[in-house]
């Protein structure tokens, strides 16, 4: 006890100002991160619907979780979304970043325009795209049918719904990744290209042997950011499809939200949340290992 007191007095003496500066964040961290995290961990072993007192149920939430076909479906759906969304996003963002990095007219305007969707509210964008995707009256199907194609059941067919959401999410987020790629492109030393040109390397060769390898750190960052962002897929299915059709767009976050706030199963939702966090941790660690290994090999 005495040693603790001595430690506190020593800290106060030597680093008083430093601790005063970080105190607001420590309070914020304790209130909004540490406390909810600890409380959620306690919740996973309980049944609690907010109203009635918490009831200890041991590992029953986890037993239910592993028997719950909808959670498994939600995880698979989220992974499908990632598989569709991440490559699409990286390819499109890189394409536009390369265009915007070249000497084209109105470059500044285009950079702003591509970034606009990022700053627009996700709810607004989702409602807008739901109208565009409308099977009967949506603009996309009007254009398709006017051109002689048949209408696509964008959001009302299990096979199309998740790809449709992935397209919309890409449109919404791609501006941010264009900016990241632009930053990455501008850090590539120009002498590498000059040397390659002297050696007679074609533009394609330069792209694959200089641009892409030099962008690898940026690609790793974008991959990880997109993965984490993709795992938190919620607004789009919540507003556009409610998780349908046939649970094809039921994302893990939407399922956790439903369990917590529609059905008041706080303990079960906390267990789902912890397991889901572990899955994200596993996937992101795996990605880093694979991609950073590739980085070293190049």
């Amino acid at each position, binding site marked *: 006890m005495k040693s603790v007191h001595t430690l506190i007095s020593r800290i106060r003496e030597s680093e008083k100002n430093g601790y005063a500066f970080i105190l607001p964040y420590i309070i914020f961290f304790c209130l909004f991160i540490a406390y909810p995290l600890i409380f959620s961990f306690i919740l996973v072993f309980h*049944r609690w*619907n*907010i*109203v*009635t007192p918490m009831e200890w149920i041991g590992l029953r939430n986890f037993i*239910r979780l592993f028997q719950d076909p909808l959670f498994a479906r939600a995880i698979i759906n989220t992974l499908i979304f990632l598989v569709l969304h991440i490559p699409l996003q990286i390819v499109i963002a890189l394409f536009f970043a390369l265009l915007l990095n070249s000497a084209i007219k109105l470059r500044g305007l285009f950079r702003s325009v591509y970034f606009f969707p990022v700053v627009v509210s996700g709810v607004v964008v989702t*409602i807008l795209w*739901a*109208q565009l995707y*409308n*099977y*009967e*009256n949506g603009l996309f199907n009007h254009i398709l049918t006017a051109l002689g194609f048949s209408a696509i*059941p964008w959001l*009302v067919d*299990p096979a199309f719904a998740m790809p449709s959401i992935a397209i919309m999410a890409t449109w919404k987020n791609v501006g941010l990744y264009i900016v990241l790629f632009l930053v990455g492109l501008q850090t590539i030393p120009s002498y590498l290209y000059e040397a390659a040109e002297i050696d007679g390397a074609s533009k394609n060769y330069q792209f694959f042997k200089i641009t892409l390898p030099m962008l690898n750190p940026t690609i790793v960052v974008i991959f990880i950011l997109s993965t984490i962002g993709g795992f938190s897929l919620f607004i789009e299915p919540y507003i556009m*499809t*409610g*998780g*349908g*059709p*046939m*649970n094809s767009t039921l994302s893990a976050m939407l399922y956790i939200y*439903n369990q917590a*706030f*529609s*059905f*008041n*199963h706080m303990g079960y939702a906390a267990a789902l949340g912890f397991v889901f966090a572990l899955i994200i941790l596993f996937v992101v660690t795996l990605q880093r290992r694979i991609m950073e290994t590739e980085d070293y090999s190049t």
Partner: protein
Amino acid sequence: MKQHILIITSVLLLLSCGPSSHDIEHEKPGVTRLTYWPAPNPQEMQLADSLVRVWNQNNPNIQVRMQPIPVGQSTEEVLLASIAAGTTPDICSNIWPGALYDYTRAGGLVAFDKFSDFDSVMTSRVPDELLETFRSPDGSIYQIPWKTNPVMMIYNKRILGELGYEEPPRTYSEFLKIGRELAGLREKNKSFDVWMGQRDIRPIWWQRFFDYLPFYIAASGGKTLFDNHTVAFVNERAEAVMAFFRDCYRDKVFPRTFSHQQDPFLLEKMATNFAGPWQIPTIQRYAPHIEFGVAPLPVPDNYEGPIYTYGDFKNISIFSNTRHPEAAWEFVKFLVTPEHDFALLEIANQIPVRGDLLTNPMFDDFFKRKPHMLLFAEQALYTRSVDEVADLKEILDALSQEYEAAAVYGRRSPAEAIHRAARRAELIIEWNK
């Protein structure tokens, strides 16, 4: 000088922290204070405000403060949060029966039948058979059935008339026949965009209050999804309803889509709509040119007997946090007098749950002025609420997913969908035991 400023500021601060004249009055001995939460829509707030004003004038010793339910995503969420925080009002008149299980399990509500005059008050107002449907599993009654919004079929007379139908469809066959005719017309003329009906196809549990659930109640002669708290919807009627909706989507009677845009009924792109009396003022305000009628929900072709439906009940409860349950009960009795039920009709355009609604001369004039409301009032006696069971929302969610699979997309047979929904419901009940 600085000291003077400091002293004056301190005095002002202390004064501002002291009790206001309102608070002093609040603490007047002998005056009981109650808080009453009505629904936060303008009509009900207006009704509550006028009733509370009258009450406070006539009852100086029991003063009621009206405060609309605080804004939240839903009343149920706000009430759950207030029960958890111990900040419930004394009385609330927007209690959804489906949420009652959680409230009573938490000991959050006062049982009405403990009041000595409860039976006499209720007997004169609510038919016994209907009142019994609101009895909780522990045998007590924690809610006064206050108002109901029966889900009925509102139809566009012009659209049906142009097809040669003077009367609305009464059975599934009649409904589908008209719907198929409209589908044929759309096929022939691409600019013709009128459907028999349209429902939100997203698997959202509460959307089933406007399609599957009222149709099931209608087809089964007033049965609900549970019997004595066990699953009771594995039967031919449940399958018939599922098959009816499957036919609607398969034969393009309903579009397999949903819209965030304006109500297609108001745009005359939909011949029928399944809705409650709240739809009437909306039509009269936004599409006064539409000539519409109101009819009971279509039933299976071989159905005989009165046609029931789902009534979106909102009831009155007293929260157990109240320090004045007797005074709260007096105020509740005041809310449900015939005069104030009339005010509910007149101001809020909602149907009070009264057995004498059609026989009491007090209501005659209103129904003469608003004949559409008379149809809803007639239906009100043949309504059922949701069952008071644990995890009702999740069970409705399971049913909703099967509805989507079998009816909207035709991926399962109606029988398989019903069995799967029942199995999932039993599993949910088992999980949460």
